[in-house]
């Protein structure tokens, strides 16, 4: 299995006069979990719904499993699984019945019992859907996307509105999809979700992709300078390179060891206490905010 499961070139989507998606390129490879990360209103759902075949694009090339989603066939639909951002399943059927109903739509579905196990609802099979918690209903959504044994799953903001423990549970479930050999395209506005789950991340802001890469390297994080911060001693002249930001003295440096050495030497010599001294690399959160704000 090689090659692109999803490839997108120059995708644009305009609603009336405004452009929700402004010329994006994407490539998702077989077997990876790809996170499409961005703030609300950045164009994530528009993009994923074009990939799923719900919306027509205004311009650009799109191939999903080698097919243009605007010309989706039944065979193609059998190869994808979809978890929508919001859907409420019928509360009158049981979990097992709901899975059986969807299984009937596919040519070669997975087993219902196996799927119940995979989504962690083996003990809830005979409960009515209406009696499930929000997190359990979301697991059922994933189960319904999985039941046709698709090659590719789309998950649109799968954990929005979850409490932290339900999110951890959902992450374990999505991570498990990789072990089943599925390719996963995931949208999220949670930084930590992309970091925990994704092999690769694309960040979208205002309809444009502003960064792509592995979570560790995103936005040049691998090469980003370290930050040395402390509370400036009152009245003291600061050494060269140190600036004041929000009342804190800040020094940016690619080489934190010699810089710290010089700084502490200055402090000892002049008798300053370097109160609240800290050394940090920018977090993914910092990068994300930097990338998505001010554009």
């Amino acid at each position, binding site marked *: 299995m090689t090659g692109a499961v999803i490839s997108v070139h120059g995708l644009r989507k305009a609603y009336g006069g405004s452009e929700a998606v402004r010329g994006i390129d994407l490539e998702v490879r077989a077997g990876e979990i790809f996170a499409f990360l961005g703030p609300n209103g950045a164009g994530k759902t528009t993009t994923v719904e074009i990939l799923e075949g*719900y919306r027509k694009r205004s311009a650009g090339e799109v191939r999903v499993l080698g097919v243009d989603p605007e010309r989706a066939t039944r065979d193609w639909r059998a190869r994808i699984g979809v978890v*929508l951002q919001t*859907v409420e399943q019928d509360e009158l*059927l049981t979990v097992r*019945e709901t899975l059986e109903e969807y299984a009937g*739509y596919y040519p070669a579905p997975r087993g219902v019992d196996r799927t119940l196990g995979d989504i962690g609802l083996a003990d809830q099979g005979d409960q009515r859907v209406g009696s499930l918690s929000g997190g359990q209903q979301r697991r059922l959504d994933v189960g319904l996307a999985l039941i*046709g044994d698709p090659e590719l799953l789309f998950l649109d903001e799968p954990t929005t509105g979850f409490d932290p423990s339900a999110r951890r549970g959902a992450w374990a479930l999505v991570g498990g999809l990789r072990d089943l050999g599925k390719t996963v395209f995931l949208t999220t506005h949670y930084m930590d979700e992309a970091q925990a789950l994704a092999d690769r991340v694309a960040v979208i802001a205002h309809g444009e992709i502003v960064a792509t890469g592995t979570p560790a390297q995103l936005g040049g994080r691998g090469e980003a300078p370290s930050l040395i911060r402390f509370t400036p001693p009152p009245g003291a002249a600061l050494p060269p390179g140190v600036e004041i930001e929000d009342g804190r003295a800040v020094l940016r440096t690619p080489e934190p060891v010699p810089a710290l050495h010089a700084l502490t030497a200055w402090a000892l010599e002049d008798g300053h206490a370097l109160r609240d001294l800290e050394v940090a690399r920018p977090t993914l959160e910092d990068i994300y905010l930097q990338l998505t704000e001010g554009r």
Partner: protein
Amino acid sequence: MRLVVHQLRFEFKRFWRDPQSVFFTVALPIVFLVIFAGIFGNDTLESRGDLKVSTYYVPGIVALGVMSAGFVGLAISIVEQRERGILKRLRSTPLPPRAYIAGRAGTAAALSLLVTAALVLVGRLAYGVRVPGAALPGLLVTLVLGTACFASLGFALSGVIRSANAAPAVTNGITLPLQMISGIFFPIDQLPAGLLGIAKVFPVYHLAQGLLDGFDPAGPAGGFGWGHLAVLAAWTVAGLALASRTFRWEPRTS
């Protein structure tokens, strides 16, 4: 075909687990028949050669039952599924749209037949109303066409209803007044000509009167009220044309 049967099976499960739909679709028409035949049953109807009014009410309430199952129930449940995102979700599966639509229409037809059978049975046991054997072909054709007519209109209407909350009010707001002026609750002899003139434009009147043609021993040959069938057919075509324009898979509110 296998998919349509699959769809029917689960639609039925849903239907019987929802007390509200069972009450309004199955129980209420029987209650109406008992009430109206109980109050007016022994009167006679001059315009139908002194036909007993209890005989008049059986086809009338059958028409009401067909509307409840095929029009009101169908439109409400489609709107509800659409607004919850279930239709959108289904659209991403390999289930062909025509199999979904056939499944829904088939459910409505099966429920219509069931309610009809129950009403005919109650009419027979409680009021001695007989179905003339010679009129069976016409009655069945009228029943099937009436179901198709109201189901297509149900699909068409579902597309213009904006929210699940509005669905019961909109559907009943259309059917109740029409039933009042179409001789479902009050025999047509008692209705003013003006109202009856309005009623004759719509399919409710023609389904009730078409079925009455079958139940009336002095009705047309084979139980075929051709004029009524023609109007029902026209409304079916109109319903299908409208439905193909208004029907939508995605929620209107979100």
